[in-house]
């Protein structure tokens, strides 16, 4: 399977004229005029449709394959969420449209804010961050703003566990903070003694994921919270793993002051080949004045307007003078927010609680089956959360077949690979997250595939190391890619 570049179909004078508006001459003064015509594909509509359809067929996706990518929550994206977010009025609504022509949209956004507050135990929610990393940014920026507003300006350190997502330290640095790492114990919990050594008058806050990136629940979270709060710092919750605890325990109740939620994980909006995401933030009382704008407020309407009980309006800098400001030109990834809204309304109270239950059931079942088959869990004494880690260090040592080899061979068996080599502190690790939407049959088939690969590795290691064989390409030369950078197609000048 190989699909040439779209440019190779291109022929001068070809096009898809049904898509063009009636021609009129442009009026461009000479000094502003484009001299050479832009090089874009010149193809027919059918050629374009066929090319991009073929490209789609080169992908693995949730709709076509089990995708147990740890920490990414690749669950089914219900089609209704897509369809209802793409109603013509929703697609056609200009972001600056008058509030009087936006009450339907704003009502959805306000209800989404309220539902997210409820499931996280926070006091305020702003939906504007456009991705998890931007939600993190908003969170740390609010922590900074809070301390600064109190004149507590020496607090410049953000504590991050060594197992954290790379975005955590990157975000803290972006916010002008110094990153202090604390280590994770062998049992997967944070090292409280080490934490005690680093908290103090310079601590702005700590960034934690719970369950942590190693797939276990941080049992001493209350101690962590009182230590950090006691030292005057705030607690930031990285919502990457919220799927594991939905309806079971709330970040607000654990003592967190601020949280971001990856709506594209827990609330099932599509990952879209790497975006768009959405990183709504929730805050406790202390951070309410600093939330990013805009967000939506609801007012009771007087008796005069019979058809509507409420009126919704935007809150902006004028309402929230201490806000950390705007993070996008308008209000973030509204279409993603609508999909999350539809998803939450469909699941409702009972359905949202079931998310964590069945995600956790699937993870623990998969872990138990793999353990029985001889695979080695990184944290054998612990319950899995919605994901867990197995380590291939024995296979790497004894057979010379490492985690990446297993991952690549899984592709041949029709499964997307789990997350490899993250978190960094477990050698040769596979981080596996099945999600609640996978059936027992699918999980059993995945276990069978790993057992089969293990057998292959014992009999013919080279075969596994050479995988994959059945995909559009075999392993790619990443060194060549980085050294002989080819980032754009250039037509042969000759």
């Amino acid at each position, binding site marked *: 399977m190989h699909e040439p570049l779209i440019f190779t179909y291109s022929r001068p004078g070809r096009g898809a004229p049904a898509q063009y508006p009636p021609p009129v001459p442009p009026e461009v003064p000479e000094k502003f005029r484009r001299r050479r015509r832009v090089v874009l594909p010149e193809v027919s509509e059918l050629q374009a449709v066929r090319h991009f359809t073929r490209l789609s067929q080169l992908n693995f996706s949730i*709709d076509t394959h089990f995708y147990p990518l740890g920490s990414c929550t690749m669950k089914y994206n219900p089609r209704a969420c897509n369809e209802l977010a793409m109603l013509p009025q929703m697609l056609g609504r200009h972001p600056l449209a008058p509030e009087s022509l936006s009450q339907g949209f704003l009502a959805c956004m306000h209800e989404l804010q309220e539902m997210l507050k409820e499931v996280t135990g926070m006091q305020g929610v702003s939906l504007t961050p456009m991705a998890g990393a931007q939600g993190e940014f908003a969170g740390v920026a609010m922590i900074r703003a809070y301390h600064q507003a109190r004149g507590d300006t020496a607090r410049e350190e953000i504590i991050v566990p060594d197992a954290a997502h790379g975005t955590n330290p990157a975000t803290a640095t972006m916010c002008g903070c110094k990153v202090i790492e604390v280590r994770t114990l062998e049992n997967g919990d944070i090292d409280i003694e080490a934490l005690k050594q680093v908290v103090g008058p310079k601590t702005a806050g700590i960034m934690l994921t719970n369950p942590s990136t190693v797939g276990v629940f941080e049992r001493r979270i209350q101690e962590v919270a009182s230590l950090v709060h006691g030292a005057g710092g705030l607690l930031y919750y990285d919502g990457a793993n919220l799927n594991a605890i939905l309806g079971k325990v709330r970040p607000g109740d654990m003592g967190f002051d601020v949280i971001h939620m990856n709506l594209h994980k827990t609330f099932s909006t599509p990952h*879209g*080949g790497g975006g768009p995401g959405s990183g709504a933030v929730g805050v406790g009382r202390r951070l309410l004045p600093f939330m990013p704008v805009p967000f939506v407020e609801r007012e009771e309407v007087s008796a005069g307007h019979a058809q509507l009980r409420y009126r919704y309006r935007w809150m902006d800098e004028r309402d929230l003078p201490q806000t950390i400001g705007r993070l*996008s030109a308008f209000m973030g990834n509204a279409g993603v927010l609508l999909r999350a809204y539809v998803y939450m309304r469909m699941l409702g109270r009972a359905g949202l609680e079931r998310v964590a239950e069945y995600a956790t059931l699937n993870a623990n079942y998969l872990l138990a089956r793999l353990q029985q088959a001889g695979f080695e869990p990184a944290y054998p004494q612990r319950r899995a959360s919605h994901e867990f880690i197995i380590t291939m260090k024995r296979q790497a040592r004894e057979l010379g077949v490492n985690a990446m080899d297993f991952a690549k061979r899984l592709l041949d068996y029709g499964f997307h690979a789990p997350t490899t080599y993250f978190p960094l502190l477990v050698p040769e690790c596979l981080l596996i997250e099945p999600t609640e939407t996978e059936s027992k049959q699918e999980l059993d088939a995945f276990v069978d595939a790993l057992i089969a690969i293990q057998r292959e590795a014992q009999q013919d290691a080279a075969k596994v190391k050479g995988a994959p064989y059945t995909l559009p*390409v075999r392993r790619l030369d990443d060194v060549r890619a980085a050294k002989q950078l080819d980032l754009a197609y250039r037509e042969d000048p000759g």
Partner: protein
Amino acid sequence: MPFIPHTPSDVSEMLAAIGAPDIDALFDEIPAALRTPPPENLPQGLTEMQITRLMHARAQLDGQPLNFLGAGAYEHHIPAAVWAIVSRGEFYSAYTPYQAEASQGTLQVLYEFQTMMANLTGMQVSNASLYDGASALAEACLMAVRAHRQSRSARILVPATVHPDYRHVARAITTGQSLKFDVLPYGEEAGTLDLSSLERYSGQDITAVVVQHPNFFGLLEDVDAITDWAHAQGAMLIAVVNPVSLAIFKPPGEWGEKGADIVVGEGQPLGAPLASGGPYFGFMTTRMEYVRQMPGRLIGRTLDLDGKPGFSLTLQAREQHIRRSKATSNICTNQGLLVTAAAIHLSLLGATGLESVAAACQANTSALVEALTGIDGVRLRFAGPRFHEAVLQLDRQVDGVLQELARRNIAGGLDLSRHFPGLGNALLVCATETRTPEDIRTYAHVLAEILT
């Protein structure tokens, strides 16, 4: 159970394999005191039929006003084929192409997109997109500070004619990085950057100069002179551009003697619906020499083990999952799905189609200006060459007029009084290729009624 496939016998077999009495036992590591009470305030679940009804009702509440709003988000015709393909599950429900062999479709689309954006902007290299145009400007400012080794000031000159919310976002995102933004005034008559206001910075250490073209008022800036001035000062030039306009306007890579250094902009006009402000995508292109300072994903073409061409994420060592606290940015997604739409959109339009769209936008805006300024109490504020937006001056407060228009189902434009109080009763209007002569007549007719 919605979206959960487990039968009762599945559950009991699974629990038996785990050795747990019930599902709740799987949460036994959570301290009991922390367990959540039942979420009383959440609504009960709705069936697909019920939520469909609800969403249709909400959509009808907002209606479909006749739209003359632009200001950073533009209503264009999107060929039906674009979202028909983008909505395919293989694109829609895939993730970041970390496993390159299982993601060649997404990777090749991104590579083709990078090629198209590099061509459109006249630059050498494009990333695989950022969140949106405003945050792309923030990232460009941070990138300029990293890339410009000789400059120590981190001072960035930003004309007031750059989209005000872009300026706000750039400030918010760079807070904590000690960047200094100096806002430069626009000429009262021209509505473009007053070149004389640059002069007082001559000889100073300036890291970068930003110019938006067409600017927030829809006007064309003297980009050649501004670019050359920046370079003469040893500053980098950051261009903020509308991608559709580049079909007819000189690309930033050809501005002045040496061209722009970093080009960013909002990708929404290339295949993304208005959709209340997102998801859109930001684009960023630059010179090859700065590629390692660029934030966001990059796709490279390479060979596989058998020597066959293929695509993979490259230069990942710049990114947060490897560099952690030393990464070029904390960004870890692009806007893959929107970029897929853009690649298909640009393939369908091609150079000819995109030129037609740009020219039609320009012509329709001229027709709109002519129609509206024919009304008593409406005049054109800035007369210079423009793309598809214009500032009109009214003889009364704009806000009330817009509310009256909204009642007549017209989104009449943006009231500039908040961001530009100095302009008085100013209204920013836009007409893209989607506005017909009839639409324009309707607007003019209704506005005339309101104003008389």
